[in-house]
């Protein structure tokens, strides 16, 4: 107080004033906080409580299991497997981040840093509360993580659709999106049956996302989807796809398809589209691949459409098979009114019988016959055979094609349509038209879904073969069949011949229509046919887009694919036998094709070869033929030698005992084929893939002894490899 400090009248009063100010400040502070508490806790509480309810209660969907897709023999094509996903709450993991990352790294083989990064590193000021660590991992892997008892790690089950045969049948089966909704193929068409209905449960959850059931809401159980039985035969499907792919490669084609059907019933046995789709990894598939082009795409058929002209001509008794037509030496000019069209044949001919004109596929003769038939009868036959209307197949996206009414035809339409131009058809329309011929003139509706069943096996609904109409008389169908057999025997499709099997069919080659006009050098090559001609079991169509390397005619491009498929089916099917081969005149065969004798017993193979005029020479040790030179399908002359190399160490043992072959890992069907070759009786337990066999491979057993096969569905093995 000694300092001469100016203007401090009364220190105590100054202090009191400032003290008052301080008290006022605190009072204000208390009032603000108190007022705000009243607001938040009472006045505005509803708003925040609504938010709270949202985060405490969560309705969880209990996903229904999607139904299985099953082929005609009971092989499961698509089913569901539980996969597990792991998420972490980095806040809870906290200081254990290193340990957690290490554990994950050990199980999944990724570097620990990868997981540490997800967890926000050793220290993260703004940690998120939820990160995915690993998604959709197999349950076995998941168990190893769960066993480590890691803090802050949450495990969730996620069902995943599994297609047991990968790309085989992929385009037809289609696939589902992440929410298990079918988005293409059968998965889409039968989504309503397959999906079932989800259940739900309302859960109380905490900040971790952990939940417990809420008593306030009832639990609604999910109803699993129905299983769908298809008409498909997965073995045929695999054969068709494999041969199609091989054929496309050989021909350098852009794409193609092969469809097989039972002509009696309309059951689709195989529907292969290339390039295909693997529904297990549909990520990279664009929409055009997912389309089932056998029903969604139309093409100008060319000569295969001659079935319409010929059927109409025969049905109305306008033309006899041996009636002769002048083929104009390869070129004919048609002028009607102001329309002029040049019709050409691939070869020059003078006179051809109608039957021969089918065999060599003369457009000129067919145009002339078309004129005889007339517009109304040609149109009616086309319509009756199912062109221009949907076949009614149960596959999504089917189009009707284009078939112009006679009233809208131009002057030359009659002639050009007679050999397959100015119409647009789908491959399945063409297939069912030939199916009608194979079926004695009766058109049936093609279908792929045999039945829909509940998971417990009760049939919800089933499809039975549907007759659409009789299109032609039995006699006409028979005459057409004979004509088509001639095409294969002597005509444009000799590459399709299989010794011992009567095949009837027709080739087709049409220039592709690209942006409204015919493109030169761009063709659609097709073959449609059925076998055995005397008792048709399978009708098939093979088409190829833009073959390049071996020419573009259907007979040399799509034909061999058809033959390869037919051959393998004949070899594996008991329904279709080669019994007719003995009746054949060997001298008629100037060119033979080497049969597939692999996995046959040498004696049987030698007999078979001998019946075709070929000599089998056996080399090596073993019970069955492992390799043949030349390969199956190779052309041969009578008297040629086919080297047969025996394989495996399964020697026929002494005193009539035979070593049991190893059939583990084979499909039941293949295993049975193999065992029957050695005349074993087969006792099958389960279905799918052979897991165990009794007696074991190599055991000596008597012919006729019973071999028991223990099989498992493919799902389990595929899942393990997955």
């Amino acid at each position: 107080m000694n300092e001469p400090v100016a203007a401090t009248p009364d220190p105590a009063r100054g202090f009191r004033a400032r003290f008052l100010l301080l008290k006022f400040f605190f009072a204000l502070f208390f009032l603000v906080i108190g007022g705000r508490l009243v607001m938040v806790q009472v006045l505005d509480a509803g708003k925040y409580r609504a938010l709270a309810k949202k985060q405490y209660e969560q309705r969880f969907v209990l996903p229904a299991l999607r139904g299985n897709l099953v082929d005609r023999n009971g092989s499961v094509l698509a089913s569901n497997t539980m996969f597990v996903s792991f998420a972490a709450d980095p806040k809870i993991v906290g200081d254990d981040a290193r340990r957690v990352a290490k554990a994950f790294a050990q199980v999944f083989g990724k570097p620990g840093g990868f997981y540490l990064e997800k967890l926000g590193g050793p220290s993260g000021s703004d940690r998120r509360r939820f990160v995915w660590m690993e998604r959709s991992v197999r349950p076995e892997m998941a168990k190893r993580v769960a066993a480590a008892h890691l803090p802050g790690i949450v495990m969730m089950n996620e069902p995943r659709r599994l297609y047991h045969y990968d790309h085989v049948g992929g385009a037809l089966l289609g696939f589902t999106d992440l929410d298990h909704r079918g988005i293409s193929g059968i998965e889409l068409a039968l989504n309503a049956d397959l999906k079932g209905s989800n259940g739900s449960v309302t859960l109380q959850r905490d900040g971790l996302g952990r939940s417990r059931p809420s008593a306030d809401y009832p639990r609604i159980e999910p109803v699993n989807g129905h299983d769908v039985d298809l008409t498909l035969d997965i073995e045929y499907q695999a054969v068709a796809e494999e041969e199609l792919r091989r054929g496309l490669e050989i021909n350098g084609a852009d794409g193609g398809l092969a469809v097989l059907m039972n002509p009696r019933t309309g059951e689709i046995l195989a529907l292969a589209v290339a390039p295909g789709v693997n529904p297990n990894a549909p990520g990279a598939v664009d929409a055009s691949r997912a389309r089932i082009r056998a029903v969604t795409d139309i093409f100008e058929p060319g000569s295969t459409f001659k079935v319409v002209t010929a059927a109409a001509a025969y049905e109305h008794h306008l033309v006899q098979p041996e009636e002769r037509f002048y083929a104009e030496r390869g070129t004919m000019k048609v002028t009607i009114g102001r329309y002029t069209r040049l019709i050409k044949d691939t070869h020059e001919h003078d006179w051809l019988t109608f039957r021969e004109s089918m065999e060599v596929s003369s457009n000129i003769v067919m145009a002339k016959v078309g004129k005889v038939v007339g517009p109304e009868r040609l149109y009616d036959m086309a319509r009756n055979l199912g062109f221009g209307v949907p076949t009614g197949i149960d596959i999504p996206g089917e189009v009707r094609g284009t078939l112009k009414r006679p009233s809208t035809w131009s002057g030359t339409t009659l002639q050009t349509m007679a050999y397959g131009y100015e119409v647009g058809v789908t491959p399945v329309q063409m297939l069912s038209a030939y199916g009608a011929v194979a079926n004695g003139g009766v058109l049936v509706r093609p279908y792929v879904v045999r039945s829909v069943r509940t998971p417990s096996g009760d049939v919800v609904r089933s499809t039975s073969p549907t007759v659409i109409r009789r299109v032609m008389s039995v006699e006409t169908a028979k005459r057409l069949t004979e004509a088509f057999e001639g095409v294969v025997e002597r005509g444009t499709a000799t590459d399709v011949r299989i010794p011992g099997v009567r095949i009837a069919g027709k080739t087709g080659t049409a220039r592709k229509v690209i942006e409204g006009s015919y493109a030169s050098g761009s063709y659609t090559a097709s073959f449609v046919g059925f076998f055995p001609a005397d008792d048709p079991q399978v009708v098939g169509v093979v088409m190829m887009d833009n073959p390049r390397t071996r020419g573009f005619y259907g007979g040399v491009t799509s034909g061999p694919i058809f033959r390869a498929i037919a051959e393998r089916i004949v070899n594996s099917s008991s329904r279709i036998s080669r019994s007719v081969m003995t009746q054949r005149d060997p001298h008629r065969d100037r060119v033979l094709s080497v049969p597939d004798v692999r996995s046959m017993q040498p004696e049987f193979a030698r007999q078979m070869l001998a019946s075709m005029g070929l000599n089998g020479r056996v080399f090596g040790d073993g019970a069955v033929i492992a390799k043949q030179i030349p390969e199956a399908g190779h052309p041969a002359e009578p008297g040629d030698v086919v080297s047969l190399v025996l394989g495996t160490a399964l020697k026929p043992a002494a005193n009539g005992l035979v070593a049991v072959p190893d059939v583990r890992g084979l499909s039941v069907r293949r295993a049975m084929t193999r065992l029957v070759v050695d005349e074993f009786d087969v006792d099958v337990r389960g279905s799918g893939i052979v897991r165990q066999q009794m007696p074991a491979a190599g055991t000596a057993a008597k012919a006729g002894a019973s071999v028991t096969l223990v099989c498992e569905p493919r799902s389990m093995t595929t899942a393990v490899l997955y």
Partner: protein
Amino acid sequence: MNERQRNHIDLPLLTVVLLLMVLSLGVVYSASATWAYEKFGESERLLNSHLLKVVLGIGAIFAGMFIPYRVYRKFTKPVLIGAIVLLATTLVLGGETKGATRWLRLGGFGLQPSELAKFALLFHLCALIAVKGELVRDFKHGYVPMMIWVGAVVGLVMLQPNFSAGAMIAALSFILLFMSRARWSHLLGTAALAIPALAIYAVSAPYRMARIQSFLTGSSGGGHSYQLLQGLIGFANGGLFGVGPGESRQRDLFLPESYGDFVFSIVGEEYGLVGTLFFLFLFLVILLRGFKIARVAKDEFGQLLALAITSTIAFYALVNAGVAIGVLPTTGQPMPFVSYGGSSLLFSSFAVGVLLNISAYTDLHPRLSSTNSVADAEPAVGTPA
């Protein structure tokens, strides 16, 4: 220093503080149980740790209570220098917690040097002001030397970086200087310089900027930050009377820091508006008793010390509540005696002990043997100045 006879301590103050500590056991337990269970597998883990700190805190109260407060005048300077050295050491050596170097780990115990420095600074300022007397009104010899100490401590704390703790210390120093009758011109001049500087510093770090932004947008109708929103949901869940002890839903990991900086939200959820206002009332009692003690303190040092301690505790409580309820940007300051956390609890307890010691040298509660025998019965307020 004339030794005078000690009277009774201010029992209402002690009672309120002990009550807060006891209540904190329940609150911290409830708030931390889920987290502790999730983290350590035992829900009592944090409760046990907190219980230990409460016991130590009570010890600290009694330690403060029995040491004559005038003793501190001799030690404030070396302690403050020590605290500054400690701060600097932490800056170099301290482990990172939540992205800031705020802790110095000594044999398993985490010590927040900023807590020590805060009280050391405030104590030293009290001592300085008491020594300087009217000299505090002199710029060069009074104001500047004090500002150097304030600047050193606030600067080091902010460098940690702990902006909000630095700002709190600055604000409390300002209150103290204000009460020391420093010149208005000095104070306002300092404020004019400091506030823009602090503002620039505040927005210089992204996380501070984000917090401030989230506060501003939140209060203008936009979305609140996750933590604040969860805090508000907690308050709202409680309503008028609360959901009941241990019934909090928000503590089930919805509300981060539910046992620390946002513990008041759990109080609001479990005990409702009644509970939060009761807690506020307890702090109001501390404020009123502290101010009363300051007013009747027998010397200027005691008076300033009582003001500093009382203001600190009340200020922290109000700021913590203000953050939790969304009237202040998120800072991360504990609620004294209630939040989980050792350093704050120990230093606050010791400070209250000192306040009680000061009260014992006043005539608030004279011993029976002294002249005024009705002292113990008198109400908390209304004593003639």
